[in-house]
């Protein structure tokens, strides 16, 4: 290969992926390591990368202790209930007690936070959400990260983490390639903070033509957070906990502001409220502890996201679709009408494009909703990610091994989607996790834990050959055929992605099977995943852009494989409305009130699964009146 090798040596803190988690990490690392070398490797351009690239209209995680609104423990109770009990409460509490300090700094940096004119507090959308004019949220936090970092490498697709050749299970940096020049990049670093993203597009999307780009989570969220860490042998948790979103149909425009601020609501095709009639049967499935409609109504506790999905899906299956969002009342108020449109323009422009294209005016027509294909990520109403250490003062022994947000690989930290068991972090919480990881990473270095790292030339050369193999493969076999994309020796990245999506959809509980799977299906799926893994050794890339897609596909495959193993392991239906185990249709607290933890042996590819205890650090105790 005619590509240059560019080595960046002596890095202290390497941030892989600079979305909200990564920018938080790079920014904070400079404070704790004023003389340390901080480097960012980002797949796109840091000014518009990650899930917040097009902006946000709300910050969904803000306590407001300053205004006497909530305490961290209130947020833990909320997230725990929404996730049917399965969260890491130490990590959640830790994130929640720091998150406000991030938000207050955002305001100081120039992010326009709306204020409630009556109280002077931030404008609440719901209990946890505050409204912002966030079109430039990402460029603003990118400025902060750029100020702190010694170097920002844009357009580097990080493919693998480097491992220490002198000590087992210790990280030593990362490698990847520049998606424009094709050059090979080697980053030798004492610590790595993975801020890369969760996974869109591993389950077949409802729209399979051009519209496949209009997925709920960004199409560039390629599961690299999981691909990188699983590839390095880090333990993962709660990977079965994929998320399904009830959103505006086709455009997947957000509904949060509509429900919470505009006070719109849903109804079936006959104009009837439908949710509550599904709750008695659902209570039988999950138990009164998780869905006590009367109790929840009295205490104003929200119904868990997955259970509301379940009612939606059931009503549509009963033949009373579509489900509509009733906007016609709220939109008569010109101020609320404007907010309704701004909400899309600030974070999902495609939904505004769709309504303009289909002449949907929510003032005169109630738009349709749908449930999306599943996504695998860790910062919305779901908690997939790495099994990480918590902070010293909060974590029980099973959750603590020295450094906050460090994975089970020494020196490898996570933030945002990368960290498992911390749902409802959203943008501000992911940024906060990055800050926590950065402080811990600096401490790890200062404690001498990164001394004596050695990276062999053999490892660097081996990874290089591996990275460019899809291009070699293309060159070797391309001329066996006249033209076109059908070749008996290889598949291209799009063909591989189509296959991954189809088998995830059909065997792992995607949208065409109504989110249903069982042990038999999962076993067949895993067999097909193995064959796909072998074929991915024969994936072919015609150019550097296709090489990017090839490596994104490999990361998606690793993420998907973990989802399969976790889904197989947890023999219950913990989150009806996210997915169903048809052979175990009930929530089973007697056997499965635990967190699931996996490890893929990087040498053999074999999976081992274990149960980890679920600590309820925060009591149910009485919430103060909100």
């Amino acid at each position, binding site marked *: 290969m005619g590509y240059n090798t560019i080595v960046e040596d002596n890095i202290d803190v390497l941030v892989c992926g600079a979305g909200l988690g990564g920018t938080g990490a790079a920014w904070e690392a400079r404070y*704790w390591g004023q003389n340390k070398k901080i480097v960012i490797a980002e797949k*796109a351009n840091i000014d518009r990368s990650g899930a917040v690239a097009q902006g946000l209209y709300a910050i969904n995680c803000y306590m407001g202790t300053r205004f006497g609104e909530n305490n961290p423990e209130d947020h833990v109770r909320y997230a725990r209930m929404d996730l049917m009990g399965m969260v890491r409460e130490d990590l959640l509490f830790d994130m929640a007690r720091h998150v406000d300090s991030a938000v207050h700094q955002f305001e100081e940096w120039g992010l*326009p936070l709306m204020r409630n004119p009556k109280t002077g507090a931030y404008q609440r959308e719901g209990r946890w959400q505050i409204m912002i004019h966030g079109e430039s949220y990402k460029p603003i936090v990118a400025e902060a990260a750029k100020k702190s970092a010694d170097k920002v490498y844009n357009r580097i697709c990080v493919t693998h983490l480097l491992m220490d050749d002198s000590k087992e299970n210790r990280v030593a940096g990362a490698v990847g390639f520049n998606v424009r020049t094709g050059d090979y990049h080697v980053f030798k670093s004492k610590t790595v903070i993975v801020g890369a993203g969760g996974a869109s597009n591993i389950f077949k999307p409802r729209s399979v033509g051009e519209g496949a*780009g209009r997925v709920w989570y960004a*199409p560039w969220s390629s599961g690299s957070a999981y691909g990188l860490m699983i590839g390095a042998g880090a333990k993962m948790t709660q990977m079965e906990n994929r998320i399904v979103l009830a959103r505006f149909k086709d455009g997947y425009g957000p509904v949060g502001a509509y429900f919470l601020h505009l006070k719109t609501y849903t109804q079936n095709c006959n104009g009837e409220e439908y949710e509550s009639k599904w709750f008695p049967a659902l209570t039988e499935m999950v138990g009164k502890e998780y869905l006590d409609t009367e109790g929840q109504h009295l205490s104003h506790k929200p119904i868990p996201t997955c259970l509301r999905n379940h009612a939606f899906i059931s009503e549509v299956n009963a033949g009373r679709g579509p489900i509509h969002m009733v906007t016609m009342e709220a939109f008569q108020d010109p101020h609320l009408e404007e907010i309704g449109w701004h909400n899309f*323009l600030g974070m999902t422009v495609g939904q505004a494009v*769709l309504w303009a294209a289909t002449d949907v005016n929510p003032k005169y027509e109630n738009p349709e909703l749908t449930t999306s294909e599943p996504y695998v990520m860790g910062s919305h109403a779901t908690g997939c990610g790495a099994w990480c250490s918590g902070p*010293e003062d909060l974590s029980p022994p099973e959750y603590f091994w020295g450094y906050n947000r460090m994975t089970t690989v020494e020196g490898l930290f996570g933030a945002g989607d990368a960290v498992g068991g911390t749902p409802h972090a959203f943008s501000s919480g992911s940024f906060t996790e990055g800050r926590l990881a950065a402080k811990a990473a600096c401490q790890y270095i200062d404690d001498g834990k990164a001394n004596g790292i050695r990276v062999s030339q053999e490892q660097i050369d081996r990874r290089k050959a591996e990275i460019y193999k899809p291009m070699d493969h293309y060159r070797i076999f391309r001329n066996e055929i006249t033209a076109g994309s059908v070749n008996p020796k290889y598949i291209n990245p799009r063909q591989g992605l189509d296959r991954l999506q189809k088998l995830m959809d059909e065997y792992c509980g995607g949208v065409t099977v109504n989110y249903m799977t069982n042990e038999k299906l999962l076993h067949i799926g895993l067999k097909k995943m193995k064959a796909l893994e072998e074929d991915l050794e024969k994936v072919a890339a015609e150019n550097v852009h296709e090489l990017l897609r090839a490596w994104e596909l490999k990361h998606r495959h690793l993420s998907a494989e973990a989802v399969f193993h976790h889904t197989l392991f947890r023999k219950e239906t913990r989150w009806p409305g996210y997915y169903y185990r048809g052979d175990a249709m009930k929530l089973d607290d007697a056997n499965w009130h635990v967190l699931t933890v996996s490890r893929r042996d990087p040498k053999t590819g074999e999976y081992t699964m274990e149960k980890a205890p679920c600590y309820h*650090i925060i009591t149910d105790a009485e919430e103060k009146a909100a």
Partner: protein
Amino acid sequence: MPTFVYMTRCDGCGQCVDICPSDIMHIDTTVRRAMNIEPNMCWECYSCVKACPHQAIDVRGYADFAPLGHSVRVLRDEEKGVIAWRIKSRNGSIDLNLLAPITTKPWGEFIPQLKNVPAPSAEMRASQLLYNEPKYIRLDDGDLHTLESNGLKMKEGVYY
């Protein structure tokens, strides 16, 4: 094809190529102007539309579900700190002009250089505090929340 580029307006400057989060805006080697090479990996995030100095990039909704004849245009002005949108529907019944702030401060000026702030003390390092804390958590004299401060007791973990 979600985003597309008008032939007569694009001069091939590459701003869109530089900013696209999905790496799909490339310069076509024949016409030497920008193009969307992979429409089904386009999120309609408008990053390229906003970055184009000639308003040469527009969006035509996804062919899977969006009929032709609509328009959502944007002008983003960093100097003035505002963004202006115009939405026109297919039948013309919707024609909205919307304006929003994008920042309240000059770019980057209010972000401190952490290399130059006083270094954290040993106590600070040993604590659970982050930069600017505890002050920035509540903007008063309150301290960081702990289990003890919030009157919480840890319960035993559950295996089954």
